[in-house]
């Protein structure tokens, strides 16, 4: 089914989905997806609403475990240790400690800016004030928001603008040094300028972390990603280097979607 569009992955592989299926109760919403994420690259998931791209993304940090009636089949191997993170022997908390997530709607906690970023560290048992200070500052710098908030770290995060809140959420995820960072349509609630900032930031942080991003916006996928996967009705239709998928897609369905004839 999958057409692999000139996929010569040159770098190391960070994670690999193997024949992954997912069920909401009896409904099979992902149908045997196999694809690999290259380390320090951005992989974008595109496709029409309901195609399963967010469902696929949320398998990577076991978010589906929070709700009853969900079931995985197949696996996702996290490299280099080759742990199948969907295995029932693996604690979902452990998975979420290794894989961070940024959500569609900016969702800072109703706490101070500092406490938002420090929370993930505190959950991991970091209590020394000097270490917390240091890592919060580093994360806020990595989230490109340090200059805007350094003088008001004790302010409530809710007082920031939407774009700032989303960068704070990215900093919160980066603070714990994740191996893989998931973005679920991170700019769909933001204006074009804030969106531009986030896209620039994604280009910056991929130097240190592997990124998987769901986006509704094909221009965004083309701008930020190295690899693109097109999904439709729970299936992976085409996966390959972004330049290839957007300029000469191998499947008719992909071409129809990209050119706006469908979707």
């Amino acid at each position, binding site marked *: 089914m999958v057409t692999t569009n000139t996929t010569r992955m040159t770098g190391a592989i960070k994670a690999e989905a193997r024949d992954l299926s997912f069920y909401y109760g009896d409904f099979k919403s992902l149908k045997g997806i196999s694809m690999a994420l290259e380390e320090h690259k951005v992989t974008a998931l595109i496709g029409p609403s309901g195609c399963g791209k967010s469902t696929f993304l949320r398998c990577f940090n076991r978010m589906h475990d929070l709700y009853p009636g969900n079931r995985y089949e197949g696996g996702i191997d996290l490299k280099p240790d080759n742990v199948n993170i969907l295995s029932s022997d693996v604690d979902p908390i452990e998975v979420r400690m290794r894989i*961070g997530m940024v959500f569609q709607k900016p*969702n800072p*906690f109703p706490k101070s800016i500092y406490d938002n970023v420090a929370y993930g560290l505190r959950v991991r048992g970091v209590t020394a004030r000097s270490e917390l200070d240091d890592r919060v500052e580093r994360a806020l710098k990595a989230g490109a928001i340090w200059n805007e908030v350094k003088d008001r770290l004790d302010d409530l995060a*809710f007082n920031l603008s939407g774009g700032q809140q989303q960068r704070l959420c990215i900093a919160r*995820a980066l603070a714990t040094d994740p191996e893989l960072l998931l973005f679920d349509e991170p700019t769909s609630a933001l204006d074009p300028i804030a969106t531009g900032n986030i896209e620039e930031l994604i280009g910056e942080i991929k130097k240190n972390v592997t990124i998987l991003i769901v986006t509704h916006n094909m221009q965004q996928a083309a701008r930020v990603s190295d690899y693109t996967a097109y999904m439709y009705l729970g299936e992976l239709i085409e996966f390959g280097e972004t330049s290839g998928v957007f300029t000469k897609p191998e499947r008719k369905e992909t071409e129809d979607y990209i050119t706006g004839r469908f979707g």
Partner: protein
Amino acid sequence: MDTPMADTPMAQGSPTARQAPDLARLRSRIASAERRQKIFAIVGVLCTSFAVLVLLAAFLDLLFDGLPRISGDFLTNFPSRRAEQAGILSAWVGSALVMLVTMLSAVPIGIGAAIYLEEYARKNWFTDLIEINVANLAGVPSIVYGLLALGLFVYQFGFGESVLTAGLTLGLLILPIVIVSSREALRAVPIHIREAAYGVGATRWQMVSDHLVPYSRGGMMTGVILGMAEAIGQTAPIITIGALTFIAFLPPPPIGAEFPFLNFEWLMSEFTVLPIQMYNWVSRPDKAFQLNAAAAGVILLLMTLVMNGLAIYLRYQVRKKIKW
């Protein structure tokens, strides 16, 4: 992308010349609709003012009768055979101590149950059953709680006719209110905040204790206070468990000057509460005692108003700070 133009009626068929609308008819229809809405507004104002006026009249009547009797002495005197010397010291102290027990019992149990039902319990027939029961408990007549307490706390557990028994009984009475309002407060925390906490690796308990409880504290406290305001006026269950109507002593103070500073004898003490003191005075033929009852009623009402005011203030504070 999703609504092709061809589906809209505007684009269907060939354009036809439109006739001028019958403006006179249109205007008369609008005028009659406006008339009806004005009539409803008047009816609404009447209904509202009726409810408010009746309450206000009752309150003013109580105030006129009772206010002249309220003084420092009234608050610091024990009840007496002479109406002019009688006071409500033992009653308001009793009410305060009973409320303390009520709060200390209902808050942890109610909030614990709410967190369990909302965050931990799996959805199945058993939790459905618990939910229906909790909802129904709120509608059980308060005297039934009194009977239950008489059998369970007074005789079975041997707590006697004490502050402890009364406090636990009222705690049981307001438990459904605390559970239901705490669950609502927990449910008001949006899913995306929960997912944010889980997303950085929090366990369920860390999510609950670091996020849900702090963010819903205001809503929970509002429910607790409203429950207490309801409990403080309860008379029937307290009579059932055998509170005395004439008490000329205070329970031993809970806080002592000597080590260990805390003293729990008051829990087992006999007691009376404000509504019972009122009931006792109202049932006497002497008019002077009935004025005492009105004065006690004013005090009771003020306590309730202060509690409700506190609940409103808390809710306002929470809404100001946390907007999802």
